[in-house]
């Protein structure tokens, strides 16, 4: 009988990433604050979709593990991180229960469905118990950072007031458990950034930006690294000739470029075609998606700019 199993090669960019100027600055910024600040803080990392946040989180987790190895050898219950993704459920609002459960599962906590807020008075397991369990878990396992991805889900609150309370609550988690809370999110999180200044000094914000207009030369360096990677794996490619196209279509987002290149590589495999400008043109990113990204980035940049430099009226 003929073997019909589809043979799929692993992507050339799987488990591979290159550091680039914007990436390094943000990564160092996070590490400096996690290990340098004496008071627990909320660190907000805001950036557009596909800029490389997921890679940054993976790298951050590896780096925390490397730095915490000695401490983890000394204390068998110490953790180097706890990680969860924030989730918004349309009919129920922000899923706090899901977030707490995911954090506790990541910390390998026991009997998550039986958490109670206090030993006395006796209560049935509830959300308050889960929140208390997260606090206690962070306090006792003492990870240097509690990483929450997809922080934009917090912004799905009904009102500004509830958003403010959400941020207050996240800050209090960090305060009570003496742990830095690092929240990664897209430009929806920019709204939270506006509140953070009003809240207190323990909120730190950084912008993990795409390469904007005027930074083509720097982006070309990144494209060169991807090209070198493909050549190292003996994949026929010529990306330097398509750097301007990549820059334009991906809005200077390295993550989006990576995804586009992977897609082109997959398509090219079947046709036995090199990854070059013509191959990229043949597998274009939908125009609607590009336009949406551009609009999102423009509004996000404006929000961030107004946060750092004041509103446009003030700037005039």
């Amino acid at each position: 009988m003929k073997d019909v199993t589809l043979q799929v090669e692993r992507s050339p960019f799987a488990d591979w990433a290159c550091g680039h100027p914007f990436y390094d600055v943000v990564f160092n910024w996070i590490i400096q604050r996690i290990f340098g600040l004496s008071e627990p803080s909320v660190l907000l990392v805001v950036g557009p979709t596909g800029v490389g946040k997921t890679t940054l989180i993976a790298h951050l987790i590896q780096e925390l593990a490397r730095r915490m190895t000695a401490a983890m050898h000394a204390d068998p219950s110490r953790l180097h991180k706890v990680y969860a993704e924030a989730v918004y459920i349309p009919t129920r609002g922000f899923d706090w229960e899901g977030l707490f459960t995911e954090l506790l599962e990541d910390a390998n906590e026991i009997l998550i469905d039986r958490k109670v807020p206090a030993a006395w008075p006796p209560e049935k397991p509830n959300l308050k118990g889960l929140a208390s369990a997260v606090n206690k878990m962070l306090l006792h396992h003492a990870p240097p950072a509690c990483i929450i991805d997809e922080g934009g889900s917090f912004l799905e609150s009904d009102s500004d007031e509830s958003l403010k309370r959400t941020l207050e609550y996240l800050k209090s988690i960090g305060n009570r458990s003496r742990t830095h809370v690092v929240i990664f999110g897209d430009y929806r999180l920019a709204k939270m950034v506006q509140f953070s200044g009003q809240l207190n000094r323990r909120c730190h914000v950084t912008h993990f930006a795409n390469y904007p207009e005027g930074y083509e030369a720097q982006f070309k360096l990144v494209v060169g690294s991807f090209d070198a990677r493909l050549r190292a794996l003996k994949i026929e490619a010529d990306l330097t000739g398509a750097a301007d196209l990549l820059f334009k279509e991906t809005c200077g987002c390295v993550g989006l470029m990576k995804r586009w290149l992977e897609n082109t590589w997959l398509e090219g495999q079947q046709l036995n075609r090199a990854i070059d400008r013509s191959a990229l043109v043949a597998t274009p990113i939908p125009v609607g998606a590009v336009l949406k990204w551009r609009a999102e980035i423009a509004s996000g940049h404006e929000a961030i700019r107004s946060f750092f430099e004041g509103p446009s009226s003030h700037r005039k």
Partner: protein
Amino acid sequence: MNSEHPTLFEPDRCLPEIDLSPVEIPPRSRLICLKPLGGETREPESLWSYAHRLSEAHALCFFDFILYFISGYKMLLFGHDKKMVETGSWKHLVMAMSGSPFGARIADLLGQLTGRTDLRNLTLAPASKIEGLTIRPRAGQAWCPHCLAEDTEPYERLHWAVADVTHCHKHGVPLAQTCSQCGKGQKMFSARSSVLRCVHCGHPKNHPGKPPEPSDLPEDVFGRWASGEVAGWLHATGCGELAKANIGIRSLNFDLCASMPEINGVTCLSERIGAGRTTARDWMKNNRGIPLKMALRWSWLCGVGLPRLFTVVLSLRDFRYRPLPSALINREQITRKAPVPADSAALYLAVLKLSAANPFMAPRLNALTASSGVHFKHPAFKEPHYLKLIHRLRERERIFFRKERIWREVSEVHAAAIKVVEGGHRLGRNRVGREMERPGCFCGQLARAYLAWFKKRFRNGDESVLRPKEIPLDVRAYWSFEKAAKTTKGG
């Protein structure tokens, strides 16, 4: 506001690869590696309290922690995975948590789950290894409200889990065992059990405020001292200082009472705390451990510290009489007529002296009063050690005179029967009776039985019956003694 906007570039830099290779993470413990409390204050925490803190650190009720998590490790704990009647079984197991050997098993399990190696020290297991000593864990809870009030993080001390510890050595107050509000005892395993709250009404167990003045009642004085001894001792065993402490108890094999005449002098003074009426030998004979309470009493009376009592081979020189606290003696003198120790000793010595002079008879009351100078209504005549000795002598006297009476009758019948045979007469009862020195005494069954036996042997031609009877030495000695003193029993 602490915010930055990354704008710096180094365009000519070669972009490095990011190292995303997985980092080897050491194995993590399943439970939080909590540090046991009380190491600094020399009052270690009990395992029950540690398990409570552990369940709280995991935001769990203690009941759930045991019933749904620890019970999942039945194989490690019991060597089987059979279904148990959960709540009922665990109720008793939790009560035994601070003791040994179940405490040791739970400590080992929690040690594996938390990554700690020192959890056995939170149980009585190290102290229970000491040969010949029995330490009973308490079935319920006991606590000092003032200690709990002073704690930054309240915890139950290990020595509170010992059944024989009744007081707080720090504040001098008896340990509480019931809630001050509802008056109910505290269960160790319940959905509401807590270190700091009443199981029933939730009233706090810690009482802020000044503790009362320590009382000078004998129970309190002894209780405070015993609690301090046990607390220090458990800390020492926890630290491994007494790891080889299994030789000492054998040195108590000699009769402590032999070194205790002067201690016995105050036996009734120390009655409430108990005196060494039972010797170590008695306990060892029965292959039982000496109860901790008794070891503490000996330690008090002999002036030998508890660790020394169990760690080194003691000689008589190690023992010295340790007087009771003056407050205790004064109180006893007021409340009851205390015998003068010298009188007790004199009476005891008089008994020994008179029984040595006449080993066949117990000394009579008039002889004792005359010899010791102690009045017969003196309380020394009711002291246990005197009564024990005099009862022993009286029992010996009763047994001896029964034996002496038998031999007296038998020897008289024997001598009379030989005279009748030599006279050529028939061995009749009347004839033999007439030949006896005291003919009237031939009326007992014993004499008749012996005569019947004699006649039977004689008719069968056994010549050995005609030989003189061999009387036991002690009976002959008594007859000589009687003849010399011209005294007879009852006459």
